């Protein structure tokens, strides 16, 4: 028996792939797919780096969330948009009522089986690039309802790929802001031009394999 490492390092896409896919033929196909994404990224990096930086900068600083609240956490989400915390300071305050114009889906609250198809559809309706924030314990893993909640989806990552997880029940508004910063940081390291179409692909590959 050995002591656990304090925090496991984030797994690479390849690792996740290997864990997720059992069929060897499928796996080879996906891995070659991944290689192509990577090589395209490498090949064009010198040329497009400044442009990519600009695009990333714009995306990170203009994350329009979808007006989409499910339960308790939605109230804290509203509080973040309100005067005291003022999400608008970071350019993310323009809550869009329609998924077509949104970039960020803050899934705030318990996702039930009845709601799950709608969440999936909303996610699909958001044009690329799209980001998903799982806010609150219920969204991340079923939360308090994980044991006896027969009607609760035990983790939103079973139905849509998640970019950032914000635990809490509900998380403080500051925690949500922190998560936003972390998301912005992650967007900053994206390769939007090299892998234009690849985000969805990679999500399909590495994230939760959606049924």
């Amino acid at each position, binding site marked *: 028996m050995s002591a656990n490492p304090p925090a496991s390092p984030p797994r690479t896409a390849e690792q996740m792939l290997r864990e997720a896919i059992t069929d060897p033929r499928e796996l080879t196909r996906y891995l070659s797919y991944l290689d192509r994404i990577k090589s395209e990224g490498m090949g064009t990096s010198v040329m497009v780096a400044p442009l990519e930086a600009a695009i990333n900068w714009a995306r990170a600083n*203009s994350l329009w969330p979808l007006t989409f609240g499910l339960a308790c956490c939605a109230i804290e989400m509203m509080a973040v948009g309100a005067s005291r915390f003022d999400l*608008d*300071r970071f*350019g993310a*305050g323009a809550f869009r009522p329609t998924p*077509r*114009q949104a970039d960020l889906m803050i899934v705030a609250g318990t996702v039930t089986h009845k709601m799950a198809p709608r969440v999936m559809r909303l996610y699909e309706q958001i044009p690329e690039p799209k980001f998903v924030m799982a806010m609150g314990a219920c969204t991340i893993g079923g939360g308090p309802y994980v044991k006896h909640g027969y009607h609760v989806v035990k983790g939103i990552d079973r139905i849509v790929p998640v970019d950032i997880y914000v635990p809490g029940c509900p998380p403080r508004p500051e925690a949500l802001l922190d998560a936003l910063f972390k998301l912005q940081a992650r967007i900053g390291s994206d390769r939007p031009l090299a892998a234009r179409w690849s985000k969805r692909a990679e999500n399909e590959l590495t994230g939760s394999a959606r049924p």
Partner: protein
Amino acid sequence: MESTAADIFLQRVLGAIWPGAQTMPAWLGYSVLLLLGAALIIGWMSLLALAWTYGERRIAGLIQVRLGPNRVGPQGILQPLADGIKLLVKEDVVPAVAYRFIYTLAPLIVFVGALLPFIVLPFSERLVISNIELGLYFVLAFEAIEVIGVLMAGWAPGSKWSLYGGMRLAAQMLSYEIPMGLCALVIIILTGSVNLGEIVAWQSRDAWFMEHPWIFGWAIFRSPAALLAFVMFYVGGLAATKRAPFDLPEAESELVAGYHTEYSGMRFAFFFMAEYASMYVICALATILFLGGWHAPIPRPELAADASLMEIWSRLAAAHGAAGTGVAGKFGAFGGSLIALLTDPGALKILLHQTFGVVNLLLKTFLLYFVMIWVRWTLPRLRIDQVMYLCLKVFLPFSVACVVWALIQVVMLG
């Protein structure tokens, strides 16, 4: 054909920079001119939209005791730029059930509809793309094109919310157009002209038995009918630009996002820019019609000269243009004529005068712009039948009364 500013520009100025312009096919010349004008207008529209989305968010922030965007760039001024770039690179989605052609066309028509009034909208006495006689009539007419675009946007994507948005706008438009037109008629009656330049000129003429009336020369101070008409015109303008409390076509809490529910990315940005551009058109038009246009509320030195800036420029450019040979030389000549223009005392005088006018107009326009934002963040939304009630049962009788008053005033006071 009379020689217009366009002809002068084409024949002399362009010719001065590039003598070949004189011999190029006419259609090419017109196309270049067209593109140039369009680029200017679109540039100005984009600038307005960018600046005022930022402005609106900051003002809303102030009203709501918060800060508004202040992180992206110094004090957040790069926020609209980030939004713009993001929208530009966002995936373009066309719903499967949409009528592709009309779906694609709708934002462009809305955009063009918002763009057209700029053709005749003056910035100052001389600074106007086309000073046609029917300026006011033109602006009012081409506001309608935007409505057709919105109707297309409402129908094409096959979404029910969009459809409701489009139909609401149609109903709304049929009600606000009439009182707005009548309010404009008040000014037409008072001034006896539909030319925007003349309307402004009328507002600097002697009034109230004063020689230099300044602020009292403005239409709203010349006649109580005009004051009332101004208020109604402005409120009607709110409806025309789909701003709160008349934002029914895109009522967020009722119709999701109304007619642009299904639009994303750049197409949505077109609607967005069109909204801010038509806000500018309404505010500038209200300023020109009722608030003295480019005339300042305070007295200013009489700097106006008869010669137009274009004349001087083309004269200078022609003088310098002959000297240049080769590309470098031509650019040199262009620069030279520019410098000469900027140092010419006559031209300087005109420039100063025009700049003063532009600043005046923009200040007043932006004040109205601010009021639009202020109203938006204060009032709840009306219901569609209340909009119709307001326009047809309140504004219509009052605007008719204003017209009658204006007629009486013109007949009695001459």
